[in-house]
């Protein structure tokens, strides 16, 4: 792409650099020189895109920033009718969360165990089942795949009562294994479906080569295929973890004094005579930060994973 003010590039350049050069060229155009309708339209589009990006960032970041700021405010500042941006920060809200009869530490432990174990199990089982689903050729395979994901389509409220009665019979109410199983019930179909799409991306010739080289099917899966789908595994793990970590609907029904999780702790701050906004935002921060850090730590695989499999149609 070139304009009358930029000489043709002697060597081919990447598209992004080309775009940037185009933008600079438009910006550098003399003021008095009339612009073509194409240039004017391109500039408008660029401004619009920039505006939308800024709005999207504000939409997502302002609430988080506000929550973070509020968690460091005292009771007066946090409920002030005029929002306070400048204030004397305090750690009281965080300190209070770990004091008294409702100490947050057990809630954090329960959340870590329930969400972590269920996400690991979902990835493990999802990988096995997804691999089988991707590689098996059988009549009704598509129906089977749809049936698996359809179990995820039911609203939680619809399955809570039967699950409660089953869990009650099995003695799983108010236990971490019970919560793990509840999250697994909901996450596993999703994990199978997702992993199946990732495995479908991997050419089966790779396994054939491994089998020819003397690998067993398990070795071919474990040594060849799994490493190639690392981004899929990470993506599935993170998505399952986020669901379980943030869950309130299952936790409110299946947990009890021995297994309450962070979202339940947050709900307990909404009381009959008021909401403790300071502590609520502090819990919100404690809930959000680990997931954000986890997402940032694996963002390379996450981005790859979320786009991989998109073109297979599996």
């Amino acid at each position: 792409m070139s304009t009358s003010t930029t000489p043709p590039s002697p060597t081919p350049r990447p598209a992004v650099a080309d775009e940037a050069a185009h933008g600079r060229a438009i910006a550098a155009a003399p003021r008095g020189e009339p612009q073509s309708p194409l240039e004017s339209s391109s500039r408008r589009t660029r401004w619009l895109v920039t505006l939308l990006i800024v709005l999207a960032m504000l939409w997502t970041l302002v609430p988080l920033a506000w929550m973070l700021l509020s968690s460091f405010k005292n009771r007066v500042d946090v409920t002030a009718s005029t929002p306070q941006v400048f204030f004397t920060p305090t750690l009281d809200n965080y300190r209070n969360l770990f004091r008294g009869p409702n100490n947050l530490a057990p809630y954090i432990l329960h959340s870590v165990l329930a969400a972590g174990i269920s996400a690991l199990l979902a990835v493990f089982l999802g990988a096995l089942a997804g691999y089988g689903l991707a590689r098996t050729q059988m009549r009704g395979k598509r129906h089977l795949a749809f049936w698996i994901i359809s179990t995820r389509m039911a609203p939680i409220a619809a399955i809570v009562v039967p699950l409660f009665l089953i869990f009650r019979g099995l003695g799983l109410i108010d236990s971490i294994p019970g919560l793990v199983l509840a999250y697994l019930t909901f996450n596993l179909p999703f994990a199978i479906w997702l992993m199946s799409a990732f495995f479908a991306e991997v050419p089966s010739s790779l396994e054939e080569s491994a089998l020819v080289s003397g690998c067993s099917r398990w070795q071919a899966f474990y040594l060849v295929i799994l490493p190639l789908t690392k981004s899929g595994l990470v993506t599935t793990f993170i998505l399952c973890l986020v669901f379980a970590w943030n869950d309130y609907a299952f936790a409110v029904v299946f947990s009890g004094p021995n297994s309450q999780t962070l979202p339940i702790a947050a709900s307990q701050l909404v009381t009959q005579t008021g909401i403790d906004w300071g502590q609520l935002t502090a819990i919100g921060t404690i809930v959000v930060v680990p997931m954000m850090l986890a997402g940032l730590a694996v963002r390379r695989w996450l981005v790859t994973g979320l786009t991989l499999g998109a073109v297979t149609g599996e």
Partner: protein
Amino acid sequence: MDRYPPQPSRRDVLRGALAAGASAALGAGLVSCGSRSDVARTADAGPWRQFQGATLNLISENTAPTAAIAAHTKPFTDLTGIEVRIVTLELSALVQRVALDLASGRAQYQVIYADPYQVLAPYQRGLVDLRSLQADPNLPDLPGGVGDFIPVQMDAAGRFADPEPFYALPYDAPTMIWQYRRDLFEKYHDRMAGDLGFDPTPGGDRTWEEYFRIARWFNENAASDVRYGTGHQARQHDSLMNDFSNVLWSYGGTYFDNGREVGRLGTRDPGPCRLDSDAAIAGAEFYNRLLSIADPASKTWDWDGVGAAFRAGRLAMCPNWHEFAASNETALPGRVGYAVLPRGPVATANMYGGTGVGISGNTLPHERGAAWLFLVWATSPETQLANLRSEAGGGTPTRTSVYEMPEVRAAERRPSPMPNMLTAAAVRQAWQPDRIGLRPKIPMWNECNTAIFTQLSRMLSGAESPRETMRSIKSRVDRIVARGWVA
């Protein structure tokens, strides 16, 4: 997809699925074989120590009394050797959890916060008739007996349909009263009295019409002190029904025939809804008019919202639950006054929102005994006094004897170490049988309540006239009641 050997066949997949299913079923069977055992009882350990080593689970709404109890369970554990674990939830989540627990046939929660309208009325059959425990010679008596509880609260929070059995002991007693800026009423008293032609001091002699005129006076004359004369909990929520009902009853309206009895003892068959009466429509018309001059944000507030606005100095007065006094005194120390709500052309009514604590019918015999010990302790005069003093909050007592204690009497005046007691004079009047406002205690109240506040919200938004609103509520409530209730 390319084929290549050795590929899992359909038969392999089905065989694997069958094996996995069989393993899961076997595992589940083994787990469920374990039978549930009762807590141990040491017969010679005395009435309070006989269940030592037991653990009780209490499920409660996030209320001030439960916060205080949760902060002070150690004395109970020291006394009985029983450990208490408390789960607090928002009311709708609690109702869902209690319903599941009662339906499952096993008591994960032995002690239940029994909201009279959302738990006691619909699930009374799942709760223990506490007379059996009160009569058990091996268990401690209720100090002062049942008669020490404020009678109307004992009926409203503890009984259902029958005046004899009781399923819960009154545990907290929030009641709607008139909360006003005492400093502003004093500042403007003479001007207001001159302009309005009556003494504006809040109290049981004031009428709702006068309340309206006081509110409008503040709107027009005191903008430098407050933005609005009155604010209300008129969001599309349970709070709207509460706020409206005070006006409805004082205008002579009623939800059902024999409304006081339906509110006090409750019934499974309340008969036709009476909201289409002229009195009910007059009440709705006044409420609509009152909200037209109230802080417009009222339509977005529940009790927390109006309480926060009042504490922020935005309102001169509001009807709200009396247990907000403690937070009022923190934000506006010495500047708030409390009175019973105004009267209407026919009556006066102050909505009662108290609850009781009961015992799950799924408990085993010794578990039930241990739970009784907790009920006796949690509602005892000593514990209620400790709750009043608690820094964790605490509600207000439900026993007559506590209100007669010298230090509690003394706390009714400022400076008060128990700020909720500053409302004592107002709530004592409000709890008189002819002044207390009791919503219908019927099993299907939850659904009726939703119909009521949904339609009222439409009225406040101008979508329906008061007359249309009352008629549409009647029609919906009649349909809900006609369906009956199976629990």
